[in-house]
């Protein structure tokens, strides 16, 4: 997994509450057995017209000014519904590295960290402010500084954000979580032996 340290990128707005993972990537694209190659099917039903090819001009992210965005601005409860990790895979393949929203669904939130993406929770008021600023200024970019836990706006002002030390370390180092857990393999074996002994007692 690639480390996430400091990321500067263009911001795109996705102005809807409760964006579920069925919207992020519809079920017909879950039949593949690969982990990558989902960039063109992200937000498929919203992004394209009924022919499945022509970009939908009413989908805000399709506007030329948001092309190449790597930071997604969203509303409450982003990523709810199905546990499909295809959702963060599709966002990552599209180029998204960080998502800012007032709240995230639990499973989606965890899945992001397993793919080197940083979901950031900010207050609904701050998110609203960022929506307004993003729309007001073409090319609106943010710098996300994970070591300092702050988001730096174009005018230099900073917004700080919370993250647990463990998740922060994992992203900063790009750690593979399985490798991390296997360092405690002895403890897992000891646990299994203790349970087996208790059962046979």
């Amino acid at each position, binding site marked *: 997994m690639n480390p996430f340290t400091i990321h500067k990128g263009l911001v795109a707005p996705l102005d809807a509450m*409760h964006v579920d993972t*069925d919207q992020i990537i519809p079920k017909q694209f879950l*039949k593949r057995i690969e982990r990558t190659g989902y960039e063109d099917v992200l937000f498929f039903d919203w992004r394209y017209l009924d022919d499945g090819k022509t970009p939908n001009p009413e989908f805000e992210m399709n506007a030329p000014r948001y092309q190449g965005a790597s930071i997604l601005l969203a509303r409450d409860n982003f990523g709810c519904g199905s546990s499909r990790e295809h959702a963060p895979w599709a966002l990552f393949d599209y180029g998204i590295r960080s998502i800012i929203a007032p709240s995230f669904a639990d499973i989606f939130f965890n899945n992001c960290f397993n793919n080197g993406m940083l979901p950031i929770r900010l207050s609904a008021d701050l998110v609203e402010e960022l929506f307004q600023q993003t729309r007001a200024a073409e090319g609106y970019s943010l710098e996300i500084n994970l070591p300092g836990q702050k988001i730096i706006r174009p005018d230099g002002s900073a917004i700080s954000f919370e993250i647990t030390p463990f998740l922060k370390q994992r992203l900063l180092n790009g750690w593979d979580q399985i490798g991390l*857990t296997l360092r405690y393999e002895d*403890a897992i074996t000891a646990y299994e032996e203790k349970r087996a002994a208790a059962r046979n007692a």
Partner: protein
Amino acid sequence: MKKNIYQKIWEAHLVCEPEGEDAILYIDRHYIHEVTSPQAFEGLRLSDRKVRRPDLTYATMDHNIPTTDRSLPIADILSRAQVETLKKNCAQFNIECFDMFDPRNGIVHVVGPELGLTQPGMTIVCGDSHTSTHGAFGALAHGIGTSEVEHVLATQTLRQKASKTMEVRINGTLPPGITSKDIVLAIIGKIGTSGGTGYVIEYTGEAIRNLSMEARMTICNMSIEAGARAGLISPDDTTIAFLKGRAMLPKDRSFEALAEEWKQWASDPGCSYDTLVELNAEDIEPQVSWGTSPEMVGGISGTTPVLADVADVNKRHAYGKALEYMGLEEGMPLQSIAIDTVFIGSCTNGRIEDLREAAKVLRGYKKADSVQRALIVPGSQAVKRQAEEEGLDRVFRDAGFEWRESGCSMCLAMNDDKLAPGERCASTSNRNFEGRQGKGGRTHLVSPAMAAAAAVKGVFTDIRNWKYQD
């Protein structure tokens, strides 16, 4: 100290809590299916890792498989490849797999409980958000992503932070015609689809205690629709009676000894939770969802919302968008909504009791001519056999329903069972998201009895006034 069931299971499964890291929690049961596991097995192969406990891991095929004639090959090449990949992976890593032709095949959340693989006090995970279903047995069960599937395969553990706990207490006695589906939809209507985020829910109260295991599974199943990864019900005599005689229970101890152990997991009387939500069973009406999120739901006597009455601007925007997608007007009586299609099945409502309830309503009736299709998809092959033994398939066929093979089917429409754009469906599944049952499809979530009644009337109707025929 008095403990709730979540605290008991958490403490008993804690392998270690390394300094500055998330805890390592042992996993007792890992269910896998064809859609969310291939990349996990590929990951194991790429890093040359083994499955630590194939004996605690069970696979089934459910999402992609056809519900029509199983003797034919799967027509969709990608679906077929995914199903075959699961079979190969299970063979390579020595995991038991209930494939399409196995009499034990079915939806993962139906099969685990009916085989007795799901037991009180266990930690259970699966790459599927409706794993919360197994919480009905007093197991800590929740969905995980594919990276976590790989983590569990390799280590038989999961990294976790302790959740907060929410008690959802349903007081009193359920009125006739009200089912556990109505309870859980009413809960979601009250707390919203993110109301349970960060929490594990325990459902308590008289109305919950009086529910069958099937009904309890329906409630726990939809915990995720309230934002909670897991929802539990403390085990009791109902739990134990359900598990008695199940085929895959542990063989090294007597059932009495197992039952004694299981009872210990129940929350201690007087234990505490971080928060409490209360509902009175008497206040719950038959529920119908009208929008594109499970929280957009109301009682059958009500109407769709009037946007001017919605104070929150983001919510008003979301409601307006949902009504437009659903092709509904503001302030419309729910009983005036005409449907095209009925789907009865899924891990929410595809169990034998659900089919019995639907059959009870349909006996002596036919679906309305305006209803173009009506599907019954049993949750498992065992449910299908049981229903046929009881003659329920005849009732459904006589009413003009199609009697199908088991699987996830139209709940998520990964196979050929899907809605056309604009098609309106009364569905016993769990999600009414845009396009969930097919692009442009319109889903209304209801109980099996309400779905059956809607099939007969062609519009949603109040099941409390139903004239049952014997």
